[in-house]
């Protein structure tokens, strides 16, 4: 005969039940803390120390690394380029992805094939995308020049990636090509979740074309657009591979974005303290931008 179950006071039993879900997620939280929180805290810690590959000791220097990196003449320019790159990419991807999603939301023969094919740029490794676009933009052999030269709008044999005036826009275009399927997929999924009866009601009220898009589709996509734009902003601001493989930040630093600047300081110049200061600043900027953006959207949603 088994022993009777221990009597648990009612109050303590409730506490245990309250704790139970937290205990279940605790292992996952521990792993997350280990792989996310620890590196972040360690990075912030390093940013307050003089730390290079040659350091025999790593003395605490307070905000010295922050002062040093903010005083680098390139710093303002790198921030400006990073913002142009990110906003240009997000906007381009949203417009192209939205347009394609609207087109694909209508039934037509071969729609499934088109949907699958349009995902190819997104699933392609960024290095492959970079190589393809480098050759497309090549002044001598590139398809872009072969297509544009007959129009006479640009000088012959334009070196799109070699000219500081065009390089950033050229890499943004390649990035838009790579990133628009993400927007397309999200918007398409959002559009297909909109109840057709809402459209029917709007049509009964006389709404057509643009009116349906502006007054039915877009308001119903607000949550999807918020999430997608935040993810896209973070992804593009963090993007390193494509721009590095296409231009290495050149020519003459015209495409040098913050991740490349951080990488250069950390692994090329082995100045880890300064690179950590840049990375911490980068993380704070990202957090503020996302908070402001999310809050603005929430306010607009409440107003609506």
């Amino acid at each position, binding site marked *: 005969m088994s022993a009777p179950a221990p009597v648990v006071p009612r109050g303590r039993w409730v506490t245990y039940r309250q704790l139970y879900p937290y205990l279940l997620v605790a292992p996952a939280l521990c792993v997350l803390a280990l792989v996310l929180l620890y590196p972040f805290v360690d990075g912030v810690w390093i940013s307050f120390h003089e730390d290079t590959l040659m350091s025999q000791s790593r003395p605490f220097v307070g905000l010295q690394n922050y002062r040093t990196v903010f005083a680098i003449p390139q710093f303002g320019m790198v921030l400006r380029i990073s913002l142009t790159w990110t906003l240009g990419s997000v906007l381009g991807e949203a417009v192209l992805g939205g347009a394609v999603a609207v087109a694909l939301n209508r039934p037509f023969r071969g729609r499934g094939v088109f949907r699958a094919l349009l995902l190819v740029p997104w699933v392609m490794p960024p290095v492959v995308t970079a190589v393809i676009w480098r050759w497309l933009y090549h002044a001598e052999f590139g398809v872009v020049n072969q297509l544009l030269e007959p129009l006479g709008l640009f000088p012959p044999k334009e*070196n799109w990636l070699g000219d500081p005036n065009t390089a950033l826009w050229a890499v943004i275009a390649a990035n838009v090509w790579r990133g628009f399927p993400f927007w397309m997929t999200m918007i398409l999924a959002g559009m297909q979740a909109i109840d057709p009866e809402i459209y029917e009601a709007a049509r009964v009220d006389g709404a057509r074309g643009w009116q349906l898009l502006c007054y039915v589709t877009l308001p119903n996509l607000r949550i999807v657009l918020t999430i997608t734009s935040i993810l896209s902003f973070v992804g593009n601001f963090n993007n390193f591979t494509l721009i590095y493989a296409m231009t290495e930040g050149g020519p003459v630093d015209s495409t040098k974005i913050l991740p490349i600047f951080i990488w250069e300081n950390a692994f090329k110049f082995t100045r880890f303290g300064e690179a950590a200061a840049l990375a911490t600043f980068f993380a704070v900027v990202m957090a503020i931008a996302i908070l402001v953006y999310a809050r603005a959207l929430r306010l607009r949603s409440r107003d609506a």
Partner: protein
Amino acid sequence: MRSSVCSRRRFVLMGGLAAAALLQACGGAAPTAVPKPTEAPKPAAAAPAPSGTPTAGAAAASTTAPPAGSATAPAAAATQSAGAAATTAPAPAVIPTYTRAAGRSIQLKYWSQLQPETQRWKDNLVVINSFMEKNPDIYVTTEHPAFADFDTKLVTAARAGTPPDMSEVADSFPQLAKGGYLVQLDPFVQDIKLDLKDYYAGKLSTCYVDQKLYALPITADCRALFYNVKLLKDAGVEQPPKSWDELVDVAKKVTKNGVYGWGVQGGNQGFMICEQFSAFFIQNDGQIISDDQKKAMTDQPEWITGATFWQELTTKHKVTQPSAATDDQNAMYALFAQGKVAMFPSGPWGRPNVIDANKNLKFGEDFNVSVLPYPRDKHPGTCQGGWLQSIWSASKVQDAAKKLLAHYHTPENIAQEAASSMPTRASSTKFKPFNDPWYDPYWQTMPFARAPVPTMAAGAEIGTALYKLLQSMLLGQQTAEQAGKTFAQDVNTRILPKYASSDAGSGCGCLTV
């Protein structure tokens, strides 16, 4: 009734078959077979040039150098004895198929920037296999981080405390040495009585940090002029240019109808500096940094004259291709092989790479190599590149690593592993392929070749700033004189002071050949 409409499944099947047929038709040849035992090592190098600065490259790869003395016997002896070596080829590039053998108690980790599929690595593997034959207790495993990320991988491993036992080293070498990550090799060199005087002094000097030896060079290369024989003949030129004046003259004659006289590869960092730009100030006795490493010398007339000549080929004479600012090494091979560019500088690895880009080209008939043109009253000269090997302080098998290093640095093994590049020891040049006459322009240049930026902690930051400077010159944003003066001020007031404590006393005379 049978429908004539193609079903979706059949459509997909047909599409798949068509794609397979297309791939088969467009696909290249089968993978290169392992060379037969009787073949001499080829001077082919699919790997990027061994310059000082890594550039964009292939994906990371990892492999294991099979240990010797196990189930399968080696197909042939891996090296030759020194006595039988004179004027004969070093060991044939035979790659025995070993398996992990029992009884090998010491595991030695070696990292190389050479990718495993390249001929240069196969040449190295012969040396490693012969080492394992001689040392049945040591098992060498190798890793091949991507060329572009090799230095990053070394830095990361050093910081993480997980470095290899022995490796090639790159841009971060001075920092690694100063940080205590590498073993000082002076006592080792004395122990094995290695004749350092046999090494090219210019290359050997880059192995010293704070007057202490932390590495040994395995390749030491320089550059020569590749020229398209047919394009020059079509322009009425029988001989390649020998002086700067002739270079401009020939390049102008050739530049017409979409063909450009002079090829610039401005797209990948270290190569731009090393492959061609530095040649022009080195020939003119200019320097980027003074011998005592305390100030920039780009505001001096020797540097400005060389830099101006290089810049004006593009901005004044307009004999370079429109894509100059972005073309990398592979693009340059393609442009030259397709007759779009008539002349450009490259190391010996350029020959097989040009032929790879156009199989119809024949060396000697369609294109050839000569000494890179230099001022009439001066001397030849180009950048000196190459790779170094170091042993890591954290290694628990340093004795085994030292044995491998000693094995690598016999004259015949240096000749073997550098068969697709250039050797670091004078006594290695008697072996094939280095005694082939086509190497003559390189041997004429080698005594004057030197590293563009000396071995110093600030080297990477100076190199990066220099790359930016060169691009601005190439784009005509500023004259060489303006650029040189701005650069000198930036280096003297911003970069060098940051490294003042770490670079103090590290003057190794790296720029002295």
